[in-house]
């Protein structure tokens, strides 16, 4: 009888573990909270500035360690190339949010810790920085383009998978006041050993043995050092973008208009310890609404902002489509990393509408998040300098 009870108990545990194993992993998300936030497009120059909003969606205090990555060109007046690479300079800071607290800052100015900032009232709606200051947030350098990443950490500044952070970025045209907003990409976390190696789509072996601390994708990878503690969800395998052919007229605005699309891309794997930027070769497969298929590839290093009009690929342009009676304005592009550069990417898109004789040179912008499909089979790794994680 005792042996039978034991068998039932074991079976119950097995059943429970089978049931739970189906819910362990989620995907990155633009509408759910996560433990890592990625703001792929941050701009602060004479033309545009960015307002970052981050909220703690939980009922407990939350901390985050954040990085600006400056991806400005070494010489901003020259095109990107081997002799004019992106800077890839990282600046880090910490923020603390009380329960359910929203916060914001303007990236060109940052945010000081000043409890004397006056609150808004009916006569004073410009109460910038009123509220609990999340920490001392440095301003970015002039002519900044790049990304912002925030990683949830515990009171000891060790990475923590609380999944409590959500964020948005609003790009503001300083001359026209035009607004363009996107949701930060949130990476959910599962288990975390709190070290300076953040594994997206994998984990680290936590058992005893020679392979303790090794990067792993499953318990089998660890052998005697199993189990594999899965840290963060994986970067997507494929990104899917609906977009217009560059310079195509807008459906609503008509023939006196044209639309351009920019795609901003950051690698999932980043090493802030060695400061060596990651290069990823991207493969594009594109279909128009006649199901004509085209392909293209390009490489981004550290950070990329691709304007479909300037890629040198005629099929991305309305003019390139036009002579072909099977070409038209709307395209679907599927984007993935090439096998030779097995790193994931994150991306955000932005459309610019120009109306002849009316809109300014900067156009009217509308940012939006890109769809994705599948999870990368190989892990991506974010390496944080260990001394940045000391309390």
């Amino acid at each position: 009888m005792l042996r039978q009870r034991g068998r039932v108990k074991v079976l119950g545990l097995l059943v429970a573990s089978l049931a739970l194993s189906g819910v362990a992993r989620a995907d990155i998300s633009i509408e759910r909270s996560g433990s890592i936030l990625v703001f792929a497009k941050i701009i602060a120059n004479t033309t545009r500035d960015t307002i970052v909003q981050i909220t703690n969606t939980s009922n407990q205090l939350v901390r985050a360690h954040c990085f600006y990555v400056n991806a400005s060109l070494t010489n901003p007046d020259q095109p990107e190339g081997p002799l004019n690479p992106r800077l890839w300079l990282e600046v880090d800071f910490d923020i603390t949010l009380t329960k359910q607290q929203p916060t914001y800052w303007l990236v060109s100015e940052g945010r000081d810790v000043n409890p004397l900032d006056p609150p808004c009232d009916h006569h004073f709606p410009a109460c910038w920085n009123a509220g609990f200051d999340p920490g001392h947030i440095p301003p970015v350098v002039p002519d900044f383009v790049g990304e912002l990443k925030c990683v949830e950490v515990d009171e000891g500044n060790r990475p923590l998978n609380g999944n409590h952070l959500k964020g948005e970025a609003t790009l503001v045209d300083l001359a026209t006041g035009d607004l363009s907003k996107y949701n930060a990409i949130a990476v959910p976390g599962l288990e975390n050993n709190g070290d300076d190696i953040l594994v997206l789509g994998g984990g680290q072996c936590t058992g005893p043995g020679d392979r303790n601390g090794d990067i792993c994708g499953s318990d089998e990878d660890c052998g005697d050092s199993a189990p594999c503690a899965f840290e963060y969800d994986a970067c997507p395998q494929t990104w899917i973008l609906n977009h217009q052919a560059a310079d195509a007229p807008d459906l609503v605005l008509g023939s006196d208009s044209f639309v351009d699309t920019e795609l901003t891309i950051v690698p999932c794997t980043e090493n802030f310890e060695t400061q060596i930027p990651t290069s990823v070769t991207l493969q594009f497969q594109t279909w128009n609404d006649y199901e004509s298929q085209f392909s293209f590839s390009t490489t981004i290093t550290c950070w990329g902002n691709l304007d479909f009009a300037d890629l040198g690929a005629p099929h991305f342009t309305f003019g390139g489509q036009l002579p072909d009676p099977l070409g038209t304005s709307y395209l679907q592009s599927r984007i993935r990393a090439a096998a030779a550069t097995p790193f994931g990417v994150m991306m955000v898109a932005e459309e610019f509408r120009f109306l002849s004789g009316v809109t300014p040179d900067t156009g009217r912008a509308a940012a939006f998040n890109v769809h994705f499909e599948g999870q990368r089979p190989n892990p991506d790794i974010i390496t944080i300098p260990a001394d940045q994680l000391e309390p």
Partner: protein
Amino acid sequence: MRKRIWIAGVLGVALSSHVALADTYVSDQSAALVVYPAIATGLGVDTEIQLSNTSTQLAAVQCYYVNVVGRCSLSDAPCIDVGQIHTECPSSLDLCLPQWVETDFRIYITGRQPLAWRVSEGLQANDLPLDGVGFRGPTGEINASSRVPPLGDPSDGSLGAGELKCYVVNGDGTPSDRNVLKGEATFVNLAANGDAAKYNALGFRAIEGAGNGDNQLVLGGEGAEYDGCPAVLILNHFFDGAIDPATEAQAFLSFLVLTPCTENFVNQIPSRVTAQYLVFNEFEQRFSTSAPVDCFFFSLLSLIDTTDPERSIFSAGVAGTISGQTRIRGVNGGLTGIALESAIGVGFSTDATNLHVQGERELPDVITVVQ
């Protein structure tokens, strides 16, 4: 004892096969049901709909426009009385009577094909790319038999506002579990020189094999056939009237669009859900209010709880800070929605964002469709 073990095993298999399923909708992955919570045409604005098939095979898609434009009681002219958008009826004796008019249509999207149309014009036979006459896809697939009507009546100035829902169907018209649709909506404001605001359609992923082929699409909960609606919608926003820190010369105004998840297109009875709002400022101070969502809700944030925006808990002057977090919970039903944020001062500009979600509703929501 053997029977107990057997039951435990069957129960475990059943649990494990259902645990990974019902989640909440996504706006960044393909799905079998896509919802555009806000579309509009007229008064200088039009909406561009983009809908793509992410698979390599033809997708038959059944769609429903819900038009909430009303009709004047005497003149029968179209009118709008939704949130803060009001149009006048010809006569002072005319009242704008709200309506909830559903129009359904079928489209066929070939493999990997991106389709797009203006809500005010739709897609007629001669607009279809692969019409089957002049052009066919590489595998012979065509869009023929597709038709997208305009949202509003062109003879009435094409005034239209409401939502769009599309779901994949099988050859016999029953709901399919193929998660192959993705979409975006772009509001283009001709009156504001082409200002545009874009959001992703909400994707309710079908649970493979869970559909029973009837005319009730079950979202979440017991017997879920698709992802459910969330327990809470979360909106990060600037309080109304707050001055933009970037230009220091324009004020923010935020608008919220909410629609009930449960809808009955057979009985044409609009749903009513009570939305509870919890509002947090940057001092972690909390305010609350509630308001009904009758079929379609569109409001300036600072007019949700009061008729005087300056006295609203959503105004910067009352909240005391620039930014806030609002958590929205549907009491007697699920809700979907998007947010629109405008800046007035330097010029006029609007952007659109998808709301964040948290948690899953325990009870299902049901969309009853015409079959």
